[in-house]
């Protein structure tokens, strides 16, 4: 993992406070690997034992896709909507695992514990990224099976792979967005606020209904949303994106990644100084 992609705090002194960097001189690579593996395993276990997280994040995208992508539209848009519901689906674990769970763990003091423990906080965040990605992968696979069986979607293997890969990598800005929310929101407010952001973000970004059937002003507004660019970039894999160059979407997503990264790292420092 490149340490620079994680929120870093530039004003730390490595000897007194643990930094976010992974290169810890007191751990060899085998120990580092064990640590990361352990963090990922623990976070995954935590998620798995939270049915309130597992069920909705797995069931909602599949249910919505079957409803809108297969039955209501009679499969006419099953390939287009597969892509957008994949985007919608993977945003869920990213926003909730970071947004809601970080807020909860912060209020329980677990985050402070992590911050003062000799193990780096970056390992904790790494664990969350891994578990979010694993959930995202399961969601994507479930959607692919539904699309192939019920939506009669046929894509080249390169497209199936490309779509899965792109959608997984594309969760990163939403992980950072979630992290920022989790660090700034209280544990009580987090679930409501994250929902309030997640669902409109998906709908207005054209992930529930194709963007081109929304009114013109909403299409204009969508340009401001990361979900829109995420969806369009993914749609370019099957050649169903709007006539707008793909690199603009990529650029927009990079900007969102940087912005959310900066916001999250600032919130992180504030949290520690409390």
């Amino acid at each position: 993992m490149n340490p620079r992609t994680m929120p870093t705090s530039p004003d730390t002194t490595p000897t007194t406070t643990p930094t976010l960097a992974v290169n810890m001189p007191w751990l060899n690579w085998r120990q580092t690997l064990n640590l990361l593996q352990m963090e990922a395993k623990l976070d995954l276990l935590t998620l798995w034992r939270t049915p309130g997280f597992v069920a909705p994040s797995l069931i909602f995208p599949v249910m919505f896709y079957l409803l809108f992508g297969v039955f209501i539209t009679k499969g006419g848009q099953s390939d287009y909507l597969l892509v957008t519901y994949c985007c919608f689906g993977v945003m869920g674990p990213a926003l909730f695992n970071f947004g809601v769970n970080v807020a909860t763990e912060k209020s329980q003091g677990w985050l402070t514990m992590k911050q003062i423990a000799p193990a780096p906080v970056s390992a904790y965040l790494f664990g969350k990224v891994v578990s979010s990605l694993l959930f995202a992968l399961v969601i994507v696979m479930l959607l692919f099976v539904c699309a192939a069986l019920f939506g009669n979607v046929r894509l080249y293997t390169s497209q199936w792979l490309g779509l899965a890969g792109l959608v997984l990598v594309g969760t990163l800005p939403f992980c950072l967005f979630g992290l920022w929310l989790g660090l700034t929101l209280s544990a009580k407010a987090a679930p409501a606020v994250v929902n309030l952001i997640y669902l409109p973000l998906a709908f207005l970004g054209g992930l529930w209904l194709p963007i081109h059937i929304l009114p013109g002003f909403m299409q204009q507004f969508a340009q401001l949303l990361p979900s829109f660019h995420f969806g369009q970039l993914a749609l370019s894999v099957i050649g169903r994106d709007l006539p707008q160059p793909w690199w603009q979407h990529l650029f927009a997503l990079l900007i969102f990644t940087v912005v959310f990264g900066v916001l999250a790292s600032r919130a992180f420092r504030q949290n520690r100084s409390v």
Partner: protein
Amino acid sequence: MSSKTLMITCGSVLMLAAFFSLLPTPDTAKTPAATTAPKTAEPASFVLGPVQLFDGETWQGQRYIEVQQGRISQISENPIQNELPKLDGEGMALLPGLIDAHVHTYNDALELAPQYGVTTVLDMFMSAQLMKPLQAGRDETPNQQRADLYSAGTLVTAPKGHGTEYGMPIPTIETPAQADAFVAARIAEGSDYIKIVYESAKAPRKMFPSIDEATLSAVIKAAKQHGKLAVVHISDQQSALEAVRAGADGLVHGFIESRVQQKLLDLMKAQKVFIIPTLAVHEAMTVRQHNNKYVLNRADLKLSANQRHNLKQGFTQFNIPPALFDNLLYNTRVMHQHGIRILAGTDAPNPGTAHGISLPLEMLLLQQAGLSIDEVLKSATSVPASSFGLKQAGLLKVGAKADLLLVGDVKNDLTALLTPHKIWKNGVRINPIVSAEASKVSAGLLADFAQSRKTLQGLGISASSDSMMQGQSSANMSWIAEGYQGAGAIRVDGAIKPGFSYPWSGLTYLPGKSMEQGADLSTFTTVSFAIRGTPGTYQLQLFSAGSMMPVGADFSVSNDWQVIKMPLSQFAGAELSAISMLLWSASPHASKPEYFLELDEIHIN
């Protein structure tokens, strides 16, 4: 990292790889729409007239019609004055593009159909995978140079029932409880209506296993609940009666074994059941005169080798008495007199039929059965459109797609349909398909295999078996140094086993420069070759270009080399002007499946 973690990692990677490789990919078979883009299309906006307009229901008299963006925008008694190009109708008859209510779509079916004015086809069983892309565009007016497709997709049949014998694996149904899910799956695949194959347990002759009456009823009920028509394939009166009783919306075949009884007539009338009698394909099973009379014996009709070949075929293996065809003509006439809707459908490309041209031939048979010319025209336009709920075909009115057929005096003579003057699909003129010339072959040696497996003429020789159709047979080819009278021959070691409906195993030789056009063997009289192998009877089969139905003749093989001379006249029905393939095959009736053959010195003279 421990070895356990490593194993888990590798396992996960392997499982992911398996998952992604199992996801379905697009069928790479060519979508015909892309292959024949017209070079010069007349504008999709124009004014045509004066014409004698038959709008699908009645003759309207002399009219001018205006087409804009592929749709009819105006129909007028007077000349239309505007800036659009004017096309002279020369007072000919203008009909809606015809609808063939019973076809099976593969290869270039949709391109061949509009050559004879068939601009919409109702498919009654095709590959569900190929169907979806071909259904596209039927609600709009793209420049596509092909017919619009409506399709049943996969048919509903019992395990090993009719429809399963073509080597294409399809889902089957056994019990009424499966009906709803089965129908829902067809609709999810894109089926426009549900086609069911049914044969009563009391049917006079049973050809295939069939679903039972309870399952038939359940499937029809499920189709209706999903808002789809249920049409039934039957081949005898008893099955027809049970299908109508079960609530079928239509029958996609007539029956020839008996004359229709009042009971069935009353029931069909009361329940408004339509019928597609498919006279042409039944005529080809029985009388086999119709195609000769109207098409094959006419020098002025330009037919492709493939069309000629298909129209010459018949279901000879059934040995049906020709007189039974009169029953079908009678049944069609009486049903029509009782007000039962008759739809023109060909069952192309079954033996004796070809896409496009067989619809005028079917219409001529409907006239022979006793329908008036106007009723025949309706049976191929407005009647199938209303029966199948097609909103985009069968009627010429303002707003309809400009699927137009300009023909001579069809009002008095249906044979005018065999020489259509001009055809438009979505307002775009249909260009004639120019079939490429078959390759020329020189008399004498085709192959001697002296040095290698390479042949002297044609594309070459290879092993072939029904394993390519999921059959059980096998064949392996090798070159051997010791041939007939010295150097070199080809050897095949194989086994012929039941599995596919038409088992084969042996050697295929392609005499032409391409499989599509084949080679012209019409100037020759004899094919000869040297052969030895496992003693027994074998078959030489000739394939005509574009057709998968060979014509075969038997020959005997012994342990010693012998030269077999076969007159080409033995292969009656093969289109010698375009032979795509010769197949030396073991016989499925051989006493034991394993065999070997050595083949050398193939001559044509």
